[in-house]
């Protein structure tokens, strides 16, 4: 990853020894280096990582794991793709509405299961109430909540990855916001 980045250009340093500059313009950043080995490896293992994430998410009720862990592992797929193929090209394939929908649907699932507790004769988030609806109701509602958690976590982590990877151009941001006003 960044270990292999070229040593920073001495001209970038602003002359103060031992002090770094707070932000570095995009032109000075180490460029994305295309590597056949990394691309091939990621292409091969990405489906398996995504499967592992889904497994950890869905199997959290019966073994170690759960929504938080599974969501992070699932989001790692996107992170790996970003490192292998460049963050901007991957970001171009994603749409903000999809990510936002992912996050909101996860929160919504949790809340629906929570408020559904009232309608099956219990309290907020009382999953045992779902036993009256169908067999093993509490188990499946717990699974559903775990999937909701996983979806929220994976969506937010993917979003953070792209925000930090593409978004912190201080100069460009300032001119943008001033143009907006």
């Amino acid at each position: 990853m960044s270990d292999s980045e070229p040593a920073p250009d001495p001209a970038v340093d602003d002359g103060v020894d031992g002090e770094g500059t707070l932000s570095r313009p995009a032109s000075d950043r180490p460029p994305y280096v295309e590597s056949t080995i990394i691309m091939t490896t990621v292409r091969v293992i990405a489906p398996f990582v995504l499967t592992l994430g889904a497994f950890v998410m869905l199997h959290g009720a019966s073994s170690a794991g759960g929504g938080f862990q599974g969501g992070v592992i699932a989001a790692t797929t996107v992170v790996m793709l970003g490192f292998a193929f460049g963050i901007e090209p991957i970001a171009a394939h994603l749409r903000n509405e999809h990510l936002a929908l992912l996050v909101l649907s996860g929160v919504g699932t949790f809340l629906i299961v929570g408020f559904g507790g009232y309608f099956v004769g219990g309290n907020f988030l009382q999953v045992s109430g779902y036993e009256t609806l169908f067999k093993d109701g509490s188990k499946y509602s717990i699974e559903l909540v775990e999937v909701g958690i996983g979806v929220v976590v994976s969506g937010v982590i993917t979003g953070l990855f792209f925000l930090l990877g593409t978004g912190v151009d201080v100069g460009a941001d300032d001119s943008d916001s001033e143009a907006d006003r």
Partner: protein
Amino acid sequence: MSLSVPVAVVLLFMLGSALAAAVLRDVVGSIVAFAGYSFGVAVLWALLRAPDVALTEAAVGAGITTVLFLLTIARTSVSRSERFEGISLRSGLAVVAIVVTVGATVPALPPVGASGTPVLAGDVSQYYLTNAYDQTGVTNVVTAVLVGYRGFDTLGEVAVVFAAGVAMLLVLRREAFV
């Protein structure tokens, strides 16, 4: 307190990587050392038979946090003139003070795995261990407690994760993730 060899090795590794993370001048090296420390913690949880926590630590602490740190540090320029951070007398004293203060609480803790600790002998944990499967149908007690018994806490955690995404958008003054 008995210390098994694997646990001792992992603790040594954690100590070394924590020191490296603190004194390395190169920020990328420091981040990698920090990831190694997190990985050591994850292995320690696994050795202490807490696989749920170990999985979380490995995925979040060692994995995604490192990636986010590296992405952030790629946005800054750092000179690498010296190999190690100079340690001033004041910061050394502060470290010693913190270590003594925190270390003073260690004798108050029960030994690892002692049978009389509240975690093992307390009514609440015994109640969960006895009734979790019957009441929720979930074999992993951790999940049963997280969602079945303490669902409201978990809803709060999800709200925190959600807020982290929104806060990042606000800080970077953007309206879209990608």
